[in-house]
């Protein structure tokens, strides 16, 4: 008893609490500090190279000026392709899990596997697509790049679609069924509409995830120094160009890599903030 009530014991507990509080503050400062440091370096280095030429000129050979037009367009094409392939599959799979088989074994298994795909190393996806598309076709192609990114889109969309459809009140489904709507129409016309904001958020998050992905593109879409929109040929993309230019010994290329990095980061941050805002408005209404 005296142990517990003694002033020295009390003091040491207070002191320990003080130390822990200090450490927690320090840890938070470190976490936020990194964000500031990284964004700061990015803005500092990226903005100095930012000009109109970046968006209007092709990637240059070493030692001359140029821009990032072909990788920017290439990245956009690959992203659109990945979303066009991945989203329908993801939404359909998520629909099955939330609407048809909410409690069956298939859904539990798919959910587990999907969560693993969600965090699987993206470079392995690149190897996979190389094996099934690039090697049989005999050459690198934009199509292969798009498919490899689609493999990364699917798990994100499956997850959010399932989560959002599960949140749709059952009363809506019952009302639709009671006026004679078949199940498929109930889902496509009623549930999808109720969950639209959330499902759109999922697609935005997926786009944010793939727009910076480099590893799966290295040996699927490869790179192209010239203007090309041919999906059957290698195509340039921002992350791969950043990778190549940053590791090169040329100052011009390194500066362009920083600018490209700034563009990607701004795009990703804008996407994730939009997604967040969508979720917030969805919650209020």
């Amino acid at each position, binding site marked *: 008893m005296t142990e517990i009530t003694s002033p020295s014991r009390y003091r040491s507990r207070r002191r320990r609490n003080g130390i822990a509080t200090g450490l927690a503050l320090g840890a938070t400062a470190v*976490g936020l500090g990194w964000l500031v440091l990284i964004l700061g370096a990015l803005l500092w280095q990226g903005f100095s190279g930012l000009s109109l030429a970046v968006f209007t000129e092709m990637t240059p050979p070493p030692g001359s000026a140029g821009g990032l037009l072909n990788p920017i367009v290439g990245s956009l094409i690959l992203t659109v392709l990945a979303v066009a392939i991945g989203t329908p599959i993801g939404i359909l799979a998520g629909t099955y899990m939330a609407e048809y088989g909410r409690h069956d074994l298939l859904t539990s298994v798919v959910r587990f596997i999907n969560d*693993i795909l969600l965090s699987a*190393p993206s470079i392995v996806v690149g190897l996979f697509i190389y094996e099934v598309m690039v090697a049989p076709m005999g050459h690198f192609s934009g199509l292969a790049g798009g498919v490899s990114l689609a493999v990364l889109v699917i798990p994100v969309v499956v997850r959010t679609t399932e989560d959002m459809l599960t949140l749709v009140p059952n009363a809506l489904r019952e009302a639709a069924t009671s006026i004679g709507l078949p199940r498929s129409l109930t889902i496509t016309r009623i549930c999808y*509409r109720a969950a639209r904001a959330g499902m759109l958020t999922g697609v935005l998050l997926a786009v944010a995830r793939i727009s*910076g992905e480099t590893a799966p593109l290295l040996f699927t879409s490869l790179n192209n120094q010239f203007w090309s929109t041919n999906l059957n040929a290698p195509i340039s993309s921002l992350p791969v160009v950043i990778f190549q230019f940053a590791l090169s010994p040329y100052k011009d290329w390194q500066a362009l890599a920083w600018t490209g990095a700034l563009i990607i980061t701004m795009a990703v941050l804008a996407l994730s903030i939009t997604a967040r805002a969508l979720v917030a408005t969805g919650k209020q209404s």
Partner: protein
Amino acid sequence: MDPSRSQSVADIAIQQRSLIAPAAGSRAKVLDRLRLSDAVFRQLTRAAAIGVLVLLSAVIFSLIRGSIPALKTFGFGFLVSERWNPVTEIFGAMPAIYGTVITSFIAMLFAVPIGLMIAFFLTALCPLWLRRPIGIAIELLAGIPSIIYGIWGLFVFAPFLQETLQPFLINTLGNLPLIGPLFGGPPYGIGMLTAGLILAIMVLPFVTAISRDVFEAVPAVLKEAAYGLGCTTWEVTRNVVLPYARVGVIGGIMLALGRALGETMAVTFVIGNAHRISSSLLAPGTTISATIANEFTEAVGDLYTSALIALGLILFVITFIVLAIARYLLLRIERRIG
């Protein structure tokens, strides 16, 4: 939402009924068509769900098929051999596996305590109005693409370490008897330690976000009871919140570990890509993912390619196990909360 349109759907359904009701034959036909489209849609969604499973099995299958030549040639020795020589076509995975494990270990060593302390700050100490902004800022760290960490690590972080931390480590810890060799050699800037630290920054948001969520899920009654007994804030977190949230925290840590093991671009920039196991953490090394990223497009010969795919298979198996454990643990805590 557009109410006029969703109403029109219901209207059409009813109108169709009333229009076709007199002719029983056509009514049956319409119903048949609806039944068919219903069944088709159902099977379509089912096929997509099964497609996710097929996708994973296809990944595993293609990796196994691709790595057969290398595994046949080197057998079990592939896993433990230290040699990696593309010219003589002798390949061993040990340096890459070693690098992957060590960099991830360094990452977790820093990310776990810092992440847990941030979660402690966010759930117990932080004023309410600051919680959301700080939480969002930490989550933005998770959204930054890994190539950005790579370019930052190469041009900003590695030179900084080369000039400050690494000479300091060499001059102090490097002279100690037991752990001295870990900090020996010249300060290259790039190397295992740098890669590990970059990874720590990358996985920090995962540890923080999941720990915060499970900390918040601890019933308020438990915390209030502890405070009522006179516990300090730290004692409540340490002795009540942490034990209660243990399973979830471990799940979050495993999830972060899975990320760290498979992370490619951030590591490729700063690891140095040297196929050897050196005693010093400051020396350049390599990881599985960095090896694949650096060498795959330049690999000539089937054996070389196959060896790299076999590395990919090893990486996939390791991360699959880690992630499966993580998901299992998180599933358990979800059930308890739900």
